[in-house]
């Protein structure tokens, strides 16, 4: 009996080039994220990881190549249109509004289409400690709580694609592991996740696939176990 054809990827980048002005950062990258899988994009500082996410989320317009979501060409779509279409981006730093309360942040998360009540229910089910602080300004939460709040947007809005940038930044390892465990549960619900991370160790544990980005090119891609050995060389500039 022939093997069933693999499902077409939810997110697919083909020969994607992008940059700032005439300074090109991504020199044509190919990447595919299938339904219900978590792909980690690793690489050293300045490799173009954040630019790749910015291009996928519509914040940077690609200069060449295509981005497809579930087979539909969305290259050049605006970030808010993509967000309403089911792309959830949690940017580098804290993906929360610091001068709005927790409740108001959750209200903002309902722009994606979910009802405000649903967003709050999901958030407080997954992270009960947020419920205790719902009238506190998000900027006054601890770093971990802020990132939990940010992740709530992914958990509650049922995105098709989730883009995560440096979730671990500035957080302790226990918090990071809890967050990644929550993120991993989304793959069971069919979400395609692309996450960018400088600290490889966290990603190698949860990712189904890993791609190593160096100098704006995909240097290697494969299963986490296969990549672990390659990473050190890539980070230190070996060719």
């Amino acid at each position, binding site marked *: 009996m022939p093997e069933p054809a693999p499902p077409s990827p939810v997110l697919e980048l083909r020969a994607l080039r992008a940059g*700032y*002005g*005439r*300074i*090109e950062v991504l*020199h044509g990258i190919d990447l595919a994220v299938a339904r219900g899988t978590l792909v980690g994009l690793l690489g050293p500082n*300045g490799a173009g990881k954040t630019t790749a996410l910015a291009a996928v*989320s519509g*914040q940077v317009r690609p200069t060449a190549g295509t981005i497809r979501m579930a087979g539909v060409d969305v290259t050049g779509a*605006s*970030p*808010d249109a993509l*967000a*309403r279409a089911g792309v959830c*981006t949690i*940017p580098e730093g804290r*993906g*929360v*509004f*610091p*001068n*709005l309360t927790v409740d*108001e942040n959750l*209200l*903002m*998360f*309902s*722009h*994606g*289409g979910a009802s*405000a009540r649903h967003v709050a229910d999901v958030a407080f089910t997954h992270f009960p400690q947020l419920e205790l602080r719902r009238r506190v300004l998000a900027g006054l939460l601890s770093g971990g709580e802020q990132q939990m709040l940010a992740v709530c*947007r992914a958990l509650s809005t049922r995105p098709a694609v989730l883009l995560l940038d440096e979730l671990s930044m500035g957080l302790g390892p226990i918090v990071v592991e809890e967050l990644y465990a929550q993120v991993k549960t989304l793959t069971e619900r069919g979400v395609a996740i692309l996450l960018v991370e400088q600290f490889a160790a966290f990603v190698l544990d949860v990712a189904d696939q890993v791609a190593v980005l160096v*100098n*704006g090119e995909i240097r290697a891609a494969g299963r986490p176990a296969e990549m672990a050995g390659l990473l050190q060389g890539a980070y230190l500039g070996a060719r």
Partner: protein
Amino acid sequence: MSELLAFTIVGVVTGSIYAVAASGLVLTYTTSGVFNIAHGAVGMLMAFVYWQVRYDWGWPTAVSLAFVLLVAAPLLGAAVERTLARNLAKASLVSSLVVTIGLLLVLMAVALNIWPPEGRRVDGFFSPGGFDLGPVFVTWHQTITVLVAVAVAIGLRLLMFRTRAGVTMRAVVDHRSLATLTGARPGLTTALSWALGSSLAALAGILLAPVLQLNVQALTLLVVNAYAAAMVGRLRSVPLTFVGAIVLGLVESYAVGYLPSDGIFTNLRFAIPTLMLFVALLLIPEGRVRPGADIVARMPALASASRAALGAAGLVAAAGLFALLADEATLSRVAPGLALGLVALSLVPLTGWAGQVSLCQMTFAGLGAFAMVKFAPGGSAVGLLAAVAVAVPVGALVALPALRLRGLYLALATLAFAVLMDNMFFIRPDVFGELGAVRVERLHVGGVSFAGERAYFVLLAAVFGMTAAGLLALRRGSFGRRLSALRDSPTACTMMGLDTTVTKLQVFALSSAIAAVGGALLAGLRQTATAADYTMFSSLPVVLLAVLGGITAVTGALVGGLVLAGFPVLADEITWLDSLAILGPGLIGLTLARRPDGLVLLFSDLWSGRRRPAPVGAEDLPGRIEELGLTVPFRPAHRAAVDRELAIDA
């Protein structure tokens, strides 16, 4: 006791109107980062529209109100956001101010054209009805005004904190890019806040119209009071803004009621918003230090000493030739351009080089004219020295708030100062005479008289040329470098041990001195000085035209002055458009939303574009920027290309 109650009621009513206007100002400023100087003008125009539909066309009051507040005003606000404010989010402060100044002038010109001044009455709501509150009769209009302010306060609070649209407005201010990523539409949100702000301005205008009557200028000046109130809330907090507005209304009312109405207290009422503004500015805690620099205008290449001298000599020679060839009528039409150019020139070191925006240069010019009248009645050159001597201390006084604050706060403080001087100083009979106009003799220096049109024309050119050359000499020296440093990053200046206080005082003194000399010469040119020549409203076109010419270039000031002088000439020719003298600069201001660098730089770009070596082609750059300097030598061509990409001017 009943007197106190009466004044308190009047104060609370006036304060309520200020509160409505100020909350609209805060709303648009916080959500878009653009301070709308035309906020009062929007309210003014909408009050006229209300008069038109309610009284001229006889629509029912409710329909008229709904039309103005729910249709006309929101459309105007959203249109302004779409066409102007949106382009200004990343513009320099002076360009964004100049564009809304342009809008203010356009709205005034439109109102003056459609509704030429005549007695138009707007009655209060349910006028003249009311009720007795103890010994004081309170009209329904007053009651409604206060209730409206309370409703606006509660409504805004609910909107901003209880609805998703309001929370989105605050979220867009907080973190615009993240708001986009959640799927909110920031553009739509900002347009909505401008529509709402415009409606609030209209509401304030309609409430104020029965009090002030339909007066274009008085209603436009509402922005100064609104700004003073908003400053109490640091342009951010709506509740504090309401507090500020009520305090302002009460102080004004008590001042009218209890202070003597003669001597130095004449017209004190008009000074109160300004005084309150200065107090708020001086007491306000220092804002967070913003890292990095403001966005600044481009600087032209610096002329060498010989080129500057050559330019000045060339200007005088050209002026001499022109004076010989042209007839006196033409000459008298061009000459104001040189004098106004000198006033515009005073903005070049202050705004162009040091980045401090002033909206009161004609006030300094007026002080110069005043010195000419008082100290040199026969036209002696002492007048010019006196002009400088009077203007310098006043300039330093205005700079006081600038020592602690910068940018927008300072610009608006100068605006308020100009209004203060209009109402407290220039209007006085001992300044420009009982009739508000005095004769000014033309200058004579060391036995040489400049009374003739031709001689005076050459004199103006010579003063402009020498001042410009002198400024360029300053610019080349350490003072010029300190000014640039101040403009680029006050924070870095402080870190390096530069005294920003002294530098700011110096440049303000310098600028006000130049403006005063310009004003003295302008008065001599017209051979008369009137209070109307030096109002706040006459300062605005000067800033506009200086920016049009190129605020960083001394030649830009000349271009700006000549263009400004051209409008009254045009208005004489085109009789169907009375207000072209206002409309022209206003329209120019609006175009600056697209091209903020000014004409001089535009032409120098076009000129040098022909001579510049061919731009570096893409093939000359290595494919990978990270290899520059490692495997590929980093050559000047690369640097030029990178600079161009990053929009840095070499």
